[in-house]
């Protein structure tokens, strides 16, 4: 008996340690090689293809449709809610649904590594007969089956932000990642006066955003600012700790670094710490993407020079608008790119933050 009990105590303790390790310590896995995995475009529904800047079919606005007579239920499936980027999006989905008299069921997988959970969540939404599903995929290839399951059940899927490889989606709504890379390049090239040496913290290997942004950055630099030299580039799991470590190592390797490209705000936050510690703030041009609280502070302090803002709230709003339009029988464009904006210390206060992040103090419903 006592042996039994003791064994349980011990096991539960170890389980807790293991669980916390698993949940907290796992780096987000790289997403799919989206390009390589495009298959079966035969059904003619929104094939996943490389974005071409400025190709958004809606321009800068995708207006709110009239409030439908029916109260629709929309299931939203997100990778996780531990990044302000997704909290802002969650706000967009929920607030827009409220405006349109719709109900949102918000589910999050708990991280990019829980693909099986996201698949089950989509199946549960199909079983509970929601009117439409908005999917932010944790994996391009891994969500094909789930999307086809919903499609077979006659439930339309709107793909937002992170793409699935399935073609059975009504529309794809996201930022134009290639344009993000070009905006970084233009700002870097102009600020450096056309010449200098930069390093790149690209982000998570194999994710569509890290690839598209980084490649577009390099291509644009070589086209328009041939005298800006890329000293080195590194992928990482895209945490602030990675940004700090990689930037420290870069500064050890290269005595002179004029600029630092960051594919995300997370590595930028780490790189900013390294630059501060080395006392090089102001003399190094640091570009980031998105705007966490720490990023904003560094931007105001002048450690981060500029950031490309994605309209995360807008992605959420447009997702709900597209769903309602589709449910009401209106045509929905196959691709929608949400607007982008480059902000510096000086222009930050003029930016309409309501499209960029959730209102201060707003938290997703539990």
């Amino acid at each position, binding site marked *: 008996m006592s042996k039994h009990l003791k064994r349980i105590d011990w096991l539960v303790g170890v*389980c807790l340690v293991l*669980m916390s390790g698993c949940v907290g310590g796992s780096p987000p896995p790289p997403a799919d090689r989206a390009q390589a995995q495009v298959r079966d475009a035969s059904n003619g529904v929104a094939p996943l293809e490389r974005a071409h800047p400025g190709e958004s079919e809606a321009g800068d606005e995708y207006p709110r449709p009239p409030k439908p007579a029916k109260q629709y239920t929309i299931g939203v499936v997100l990778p996780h809610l531990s990044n302000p980027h997704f909290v802002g999006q969650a706000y967009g989905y929920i607030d827009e649904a409220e405006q349109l008299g719709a109900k949102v069921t918000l589910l999050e997988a708990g991280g990019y*590594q829980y*693909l099986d959970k996201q698949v089950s969540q989509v199946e549960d*939404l199909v079983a*509970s007969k929601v009117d439409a599903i908005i999917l932010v995929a944790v*994996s391009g290839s891994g969500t094909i*089956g789930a999307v086809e399951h919903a499609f077979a*059940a006659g439930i339309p899927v709107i793909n937002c932000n992170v793409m699935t490889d399935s073609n059975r989606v009504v529309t794809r709504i996201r930022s134009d990642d290639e344009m993000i890379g070009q905006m970084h390049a233009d700002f870097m090239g102009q600020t450096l006066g056309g010449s200098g040496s930069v390093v790149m913290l690209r982000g998570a290997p194999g994710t569509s955003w890290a690839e598209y942004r980084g490649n577009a950055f390099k291509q644009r630099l070589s086209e328009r600012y041939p005298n800006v030299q890329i000293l080195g580039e590194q992928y990482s799991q895209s945490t602030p700790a990675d940004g700090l470590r990689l930037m420290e190592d870069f500064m050890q390797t290269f005595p002179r670094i004029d600029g630092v490209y960051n594919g995300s705000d997370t590595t930028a936050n780490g790189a900013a710490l390294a630059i501060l510690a080395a006392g090089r703030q102001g003399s190094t041009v640091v570009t980031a993407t998105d705007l966490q609280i720490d990023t904003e502070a560094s931007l105001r302090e002048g450690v981060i020079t500029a950031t490309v803002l994605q309209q995360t709230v807008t992605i959420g709003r447009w997702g709900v608008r597209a769903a309602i339009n589709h449910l009401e029988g209106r045509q929905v464009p196959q691709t929608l790119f949400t607007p982008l904006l480059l902000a510096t210390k000086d222009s930050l206060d003029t930016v309409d933050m309501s499209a960029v992040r959730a209102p201060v103090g707003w938290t997703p419903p539990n």
Partner: protein
Amino acid sequence: MMRMLRKASWSQIGMPAVLVGLVVVFGAINPNFWSATNVTNVSRQISVLALISIGQTFAILSGGIDLSVGSLLALVSVVCAQQMLEVGVAGGVVAGVLAGGLAGLVNGVLIAKARVPAFIATLGMLVAARGVALTLSGGLPIAGLPREFLVVGAGNWGPFPVPTIIVAAAFVVAYVTLSRTRFGRYVYAMGSNEEAAVLSGINVAKYKTLVYVVSGLFAGIAGVVLTSRVISGQPTLGEVQELHSIAAVVIGGGRISGGVGGIGKTLMGVLVLGILSNGLNLAQVSSYVQNIVIGAIIVGAVYIDVAGERRRRGSTVTS
């Protein structure tokens, strides 16, 4: 009557009562819970957990534990997908199951022959198998699997989902093995009292090794089903699934120190976990709160079991 109730154990009455209660409550909250699509939905969703929990039952019954089954899902998924692209669907499936069995054999030899404690040996495998999966795949998902392979995880055979049929077959095989074969009796014997098992002439090393091979093979089958469900090889699959499988065994009424439990009980534990997760999703309970509920159920189930046993022992002494 009271005495009968007192004597009844958690797994005989408590567990089925909890199951019925869950079904009634969730059905009342969302009528779609009862729909035929959701019943097949749940049975499909729990298939992977059911398969690894069957293997876990062998390990725990024998007095050991298998912490590696979650990571093995990832290893199996990567091997299965890579081989499938090389040699076709059948080859991929066989390679995946064998990869699981091979990892189980390594576990078994380490535990039975090298005498590394099961907890440590399979903890090592938990870490290493994930490493192998990431190395083989370069950290990237393996896509482009043939569409016919979808049948394994998403197809139907008549009104029954294929993964459910796989689970049913595995259940029968495991049930017969544990209750009707010498190997099965030895598994219980080793878990109840290993020393006595050795003294009574059982080749403990051999059967212990076999236990982990069995667990690995079931993880192999589960990994193939999961790979089909996500129709790609994914090196990040299966995190914390080993803990869910242990939870399923103990919620069903299996004793964590071995010797007590069974496939039927484990399946009941799997059903509770699966129905909870699905029902809470349909009732729109946040996944954060779901974790709290599931954690409470794991500890609560074992507590009731232990308390019930203490009470029964107490009453035997006084009567």
